[in-house]
């Protein structure tokens, strides 16, 4: 891929991700926010493809776009109440939150301006899936199993918390 083409693709994805993330935060209808969140996740998957991490992009689509956002939309639909147009308002601390976020943004941009930009692009393994499999079942096998147990415990815990409690006399 040519380097200008990569740059153009990056900026298109940048605008897509940032604009849809801003829409998630600023829109007043939470259903619209959830749908823009899906768009933002898809844009991040595009960024992964640009980084030549295709497996991560596939995982992003499967887990975030397929599962997490559907779960969030389920949450919205199960708890919605009152006027849906006013369902995603700001809380009492929005001014302080804006100041903190803006300050952090300025800090990050200042730090990035001091960072040397000309880092060489290293040679990525062509077969990232194979390399990932060797990493997961080699040096990272214990964290891998712990993550599996965490997933199981988390899902069982979520079912326990969300379960309808029967009123017994």
């Amino acid at each position, binding site marked *: 891929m040519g380097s200008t083409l990569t740059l153009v693709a*990056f900026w298109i994805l940048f605008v897509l991700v940032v604009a849809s993330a801003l829409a998630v935060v600023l829109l007043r209808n939470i259903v619209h926010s959830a749908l823009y969140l899906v768009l933002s996740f898809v844009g991040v998957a595009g960024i992964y493809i640009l980084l030549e991490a295709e497996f991560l992009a596939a995982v992003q689509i499967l887990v975030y776009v397929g599962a997490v956002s559907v779960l969030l939309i389920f949450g919205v639909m199960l708890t919605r109440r009152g006027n849906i147009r006013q369902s995603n308002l700001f809380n009492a601390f929005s001014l302080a939150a804006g100041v903190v976020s803006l300050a952090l943004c300025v800090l990050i941009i200042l730090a990035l301006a001091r960072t040397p930009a000309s880092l060489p692009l290293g040679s990525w393994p062509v077969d990232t899936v194979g390399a*990932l499999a060797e990493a997961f079942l080699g040096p990272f096998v214990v964290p891998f199993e712990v993550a599996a147990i*965490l997933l199981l415990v988390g899902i069982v815990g979520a079912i326990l*918390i969300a379960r309808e409690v029967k009123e017994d006399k």
Partner: protein
Amino acid sequence: MITLNHYLMLGGVLFVIGLFGALAKKNAIAVLMGIELMLNAVNINLAAFNRFLNPDKVVGLVFAIFVIVVAAVEVAVGLAIVINLYRQRLNTSVDEADWLKW
């Protein structure tokens, strides 16, 4: 020429937007959405650092996948808590969730 700083800038901006969403929204589900945006920003940073600084090993991608697993668990448990909150108070506003006193 695309550099590491491009990706770091995207990650930083996305993180700040997610932070603002997580801090400033009233609806608990919107707070969860902000947290998801922040985790996505972290994943972009992990993948970009891996790609540019240490491309021989895929450690950054391994970490990103662990973050995705933890994010999925977090959203499941968080939504369960929100649904339970809604059952008790008929409301998902974080301003109203003031059971803890000091």
